[in-house]
């Protein structure tokens, strides 16, 4: 089941044995198979698009599929750090895997740039000078959704998320901003595929809105079964529950749903317009927010490599912290705990050609940092 890809950026025919001493090795552990595959594939494709555009021949990529299994990710990380001698690691999608891999990687002197998972622990007490999150702190999109639920006048939400670090961050984040009551709070299993019991609870809860965080295959299964069950309580979610991959699979039933995101393909800035066009040309599909996160992560790394080699850790870290790259999100800067400070938008699902996509309809939070920065001492 395990496979291993050695890809040389720029696709030049240099073999790894001929690599020069100052070459940079980047290890990417991400989810490329199973119910979470869509997320990892998008992160990888966005990342590799930026690498290809840069056309550098001194970067060696090592890509592994973690199959969303923490033990597998830990093994792969150990091998990358101890025998492949990587300088930078990236790629992890799921926060439970992130918690298993990142603290030990950064403790061994490797730089870790997260293109997705942003567990609260790593933003707060367990922050590290070599750890950067290029996407968001886990709570962010959920906080924005809570703020949005207030403006919609929802006062009784049924809230639902998988029982793992990001799921708990999600419901915490939503309730941080949301001012109404919670009809019921439910945790499901990570990777659960049948939501009949939860949908029955929703139907009987008397809630006026359902807030759910179910990324990847879980979201697809939930939205399809929700439509099937004929429950008509409005759904609200973060972008993860309505990303491009999910919209392709759930069809009409998602039309008109509002969700919150730090990125959308219609964000009007030159970097984003160029990214969306290049991604569609390369992969023949619309990019998702995960793809934009992978692309931004690669461009941040490239911008820092222009300044210093990771072996010069202090200079490389300073260059990362400066975030001197053209983000697809427009303005982009890091807070004191190396997590983004950024605007978070409200998007609506609309028809687009034969399928569906999201367009921005408003801004939920401006220049939002995160709630854990105070606890971080680096």
């Amino acid at each position, binding site marked *: *089941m395990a496979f291993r890809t050695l890809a040389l950026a720029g696709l030049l025919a240099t073999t790894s044995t001929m690599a020069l001493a100052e070459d940079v090795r980047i290890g990417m552990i991400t989810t*490329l*198979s*199973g*119910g979470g*595959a*869509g997320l990892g*594939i998008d992160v990888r494709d966005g990342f590799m698009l930026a690498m290809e555009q840069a056309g550098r021949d001194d970067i060696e990529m090592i890509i592994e599929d973690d*199959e969303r299994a923490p033990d597998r990710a830990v093994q792969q990380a150990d091998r990358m750090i101890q025998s492949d001698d990587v300088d930078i690691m990236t790629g992890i999608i799921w926060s439970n895997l992130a918690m298993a891999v990142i603290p030990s990687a950064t403790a061994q002197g490797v730089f870790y740039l997260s293109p997705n998972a942003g567990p609260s622990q790593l933003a707060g007490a367990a922050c590290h000078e070599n750890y950067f999150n290029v996407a968001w702190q886990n709570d962010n999109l959920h906080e924005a959704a809570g703020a949005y639920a207030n403006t919609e006048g929802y006062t009784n939400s049924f809230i639902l998320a998988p*029982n793992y670090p990001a799921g*708990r961050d999600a419901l915490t984040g939503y309730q941080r901003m949301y001012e109404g009551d*919670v009809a019921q*709070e*439910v*945790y*499901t*299993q990570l*990777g659960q*595929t*049948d939501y*009949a*019991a*939860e949908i*029955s*609870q929703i*139907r*009987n809860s008397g809630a006026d809105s359902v807030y759910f965080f179910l990324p990847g*295959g879980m979201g*697809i*299964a939930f939205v*399809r*079964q929700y439509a*099937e*069950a*004929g429950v008509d309580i409005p759904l609200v979610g973060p972008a993860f529950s309505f990303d491009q991959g999910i919209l392709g*699979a759930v069809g009409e039933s998602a039309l008109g749903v509002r969700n919150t995101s730090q990125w959308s393909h219609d964000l009007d800035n030159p970097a984003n317009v160029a990214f969306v066009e290049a991604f569609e040309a390369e992969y023949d599909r619309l990019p998702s927010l995960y793809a934009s996160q992978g692309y931004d992560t690669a461009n941040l790394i490239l911008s820092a490599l222009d300044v210093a080699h990771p072996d010069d850790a202090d200079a490389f870290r300073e260059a990362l912290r400066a975030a001197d790259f053209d983000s697809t999100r427009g303005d982009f800067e890091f807070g004191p705990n190396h997590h983004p400070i950024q605007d978070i938008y409200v998007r609506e699902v609309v028809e687009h050609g034969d399928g569906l996509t999201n367009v921005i309809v408003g801004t939920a939070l401006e220049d939002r940092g995160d709630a854990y920065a105070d606890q971080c001492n680096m």
Partner: protein
Amino acid sequence: MSAALLIEQLLNGLQFGVMLFLMAAGLTLIFGVMGLINLAHGSLYMIGAFAAAGTAALTGSFWLALAAALMAAALVGAIVEMVVIRRLYDRDHLDQVLATFALILIFSEGTRFLFGSLPLYLDTPDILSGPTTLPGGLDYSKYRLFIIGVGLAIAGGLFWLIGRTRLGIQIRAGEADREMIAALGVDIRKLYTLVFALGAALAGLAGAMIGAIQAVEVGMGEPVLILAFVVIVIGGIGSIKGAFIGALLVGLTDTLGRVLLPQVFGLIMDASSATTVGASLASMAIYILMAGILLFRPSGLFGGQT
């Protein structure tokens, strides 16, 4: 909790239970008759789902897709039995586990090679989509009712097949004494292939039916396989009746556990930790059930005395 919600959850548990029964019936028959531990049973479930998704994409017909799933799984089951499994009957269980685990890897990678690693989706037919109103004013998904109906009908058919037909007599005889029925002139090789294909077809049907409400993806069979093993251990290995009762017990325990445990813990702790503890414990509930049953009946509810 209102009565309507309880009834709805019982239906959910029943639907999950009959789906598990379709998986467990094949597994328990194969173990009972041939003494074979077939880890690749989950792959047959996956093959059924992929055959259905592929056929539905080509023809647009759900019913053709179901038929294709049955046939594809039965065919693959029969071929696998003749090519691989037949060589394993005289080996010990460890060899069987090793060989059938290899089959899982081969089928998973083969399917990924053919269909890619992104999930496929199968739509429910128009006639079965959306909810229907049951007597008492309860809304429930038509498709889930359809799964319950099909599962119960197949359970009935299997009891009839095992209990009332010549083939059933041969199967029961095969469970009791393999050498003797071979000596009596029954073509044991053909019987084994037939039983294996029957079990495979049931797994394929389960995969196809579930594929329409979940996603059709590589590796979808293994979580169900684990539950199916729990079912046959609870029910007693080799017993169809045990598999049926075990499947319903597991289905109801899992569904009601997910719903009730967080509420029970809510009585003694604050809401947020109650949901976390309840959800964690709910995922263990069926294993606790299994351990409890094995404590009092070591060979399962309907297993032979050992």
